């Protein structure tokens, strides 16, 4: 079954923000907004639930810290203790200040890399993936709002979008299992 969506293009992020708020207040469903750059507050305006990426990042950081502690403990204390600068490696806690830089770096390393990988997986991005954005201009200087037409009156919807400052409005028939 084919469904109808409307593509409205904007050229300014402030106009877009106001348009998103207006369209949502009229109880239309916005499928997606494509932007050439991140627009602050757009996620809130669209009513998208808060990202949980930060929580995963915290957990990855904890994993990194644990890995660093276990690794340094094994390498420097258990496996091959050395006397460096008059500080023999007999206990982890006594030599802890020397290990802090590694603990810090691995915390950051794990948090950053695993968070990016999580982000890619969550956004279904991988190498050689076909671009999903419907209009190449959204990678340059246009913003595209995709509104679900559903059972709404299309004329009324397009005139509303025109009022919000859209520079171009297109009605698209979308095949359900197109992608």
């Amino acid at each position: 079954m084919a469904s109808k969506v409307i593509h409205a293009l904007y050229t300014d992020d402030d106009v877009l923000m106001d348009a998103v708020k207006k369209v949502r207040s009229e109880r239309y469903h916005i499928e997606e907004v494509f932007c050439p750059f991140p627009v602050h507050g757009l996620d809130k305006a669209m009513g998208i639930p808060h990202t949980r990426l930060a929580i995963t990042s915290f957990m990855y950081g904890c994993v990194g810290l644990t890995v660093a502690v276990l690794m340094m403990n094994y390498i420097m204390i258990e496996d091959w203790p050395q006397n460096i600068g008059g500080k023999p490696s007999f206990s982890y806690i006594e030599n802890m200040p020397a290990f802090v830089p590694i603990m810090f770096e691995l915390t950051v390393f794990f948090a950053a890399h695993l968070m990016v990988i999580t982000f890619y997986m969550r956004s279904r991005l991988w190498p050689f993936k076909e671009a999903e954005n419907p209009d190449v201009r959204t990678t340059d200087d246009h913003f595209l709002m995709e509104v679900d037409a559903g059972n709404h009156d299309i004329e009324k919807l397009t005139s509303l979008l025109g009022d919000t400052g859209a520079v171009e409005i297109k009605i698209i028939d979308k095949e359900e299992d197109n992608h």
Partner: protein
Amino acid sequence: MYTLSNRLRLFSIILMVVGLVGLVIGFAKAPSSIEEVKEMMAAHDTHGGGHGGSETEIHAGNTVHAEHDLEKDAHSGDAHYEHVLHQLQNKPWASLYAAAFFFFMIALGVLAFYAIQFAAQAGWSPVLFRVMEAITAYLVPGGLILFVILALSGFHVNHLFVWADPEVVAHDKLIQGKSSWLNGTGFIIRAAIFLGGWLLYRHFAVKYSRKQDEDSTGNKWYKKSFKISAGFLVFFIYTESMMSWDWIMSFDPHWFSTLFGWYVFASLFVSGITTIALITIYLKSKGYLEFVNDSHIHDLAKFMFGISIFWTYLWFSQFMLIWYSNIPEEVTYFITRIEDYKLPFFGMLVMNFIFPLLVLMNSDFKRVNWFVVMAGIVILCGHYIDVYNMIMPATVGESWFIGISEISAVLLFLGLFLFVVFRALTKAPLLAKGNPYLEESKHFHY
């Protein structure tokens, strides 16, 4: 316009009076002779404190003991008691100094933050400018009081700085080598230059900000603010660094650290930003500053979080290098602190690093006012202890305790600070309406 409520005025005056009385008692209670020290210590010993018999104390290079090097650290007979006598006589002075410096450094941190807002042409912060200007008003009385204390110390009226004692210098080759910098006259001249420069910038920055409100055509006054702020920041970063050597690092004149200026800067910067946040939230709770929204508080809390981490980074950079290299004349600084000041030394790390890290990490918590207030109070207490840790080991040594003079000194300067800051708030409208970035700031959202 803000009006100072009678309750707040009364509260700050009571704080000042209580603090002053307590401080007088603290000075009066300081022992004046060896006999009194012996009596005090005997009284302590009956309580089971083994202070009198502390023959095993390690005094490796602690500069308080410079004068005792004469006696080859014999610690027999009256030498030890005389030593404790000096420490206890220093105690009220040192607590007065620590509190005076702490509240002064808050105002100084705010002044630097304020100048950065102008130099960076920040768009988010103009709604907070009047709060910042009011806090910097404390620089005038706070700076004068500090100057008087410094002058008294620099000319050896009290015994805070060992390098100011001719007796000590005569027997100390290292201080003799530094005496072209560390001498009373130079000390006072430099203090006058530092304070003069900062107060001058403060005067003109506030003046231009008020003028910009009256006449904002062409942003003439704003441009002037921009120029002097940029100039001030250059002046500030040099003088702040030298100030930290003079006013704090020279308590231990044998010891030095090249990043000490940055370390003190991080401390004063985070304390200043925290105070801006606390006073803003207080004023908002009283129904003022309706144009300040959650995002402004959020940004201040981000700064509190970020600069706390920055402080820790500098603290650790200083600590780890000295700890690792383990050179006697350097590491003595931390040995005294870890052995005699274990609780404040490690407690400060928890309050200034671990607590803000965990409490302010979550983005949503930075918008919850009571969370920011709670974190802010802990950060401020932590940085007072930080200052305490920088000053006390060299002046009071192992005879420290948080007693009547410490608490009274804090109360005195807290009262003065609140009184001056909130009175300064009444002097001008709370909105810097002429600022060209005001609209952006009002609509600031994250």
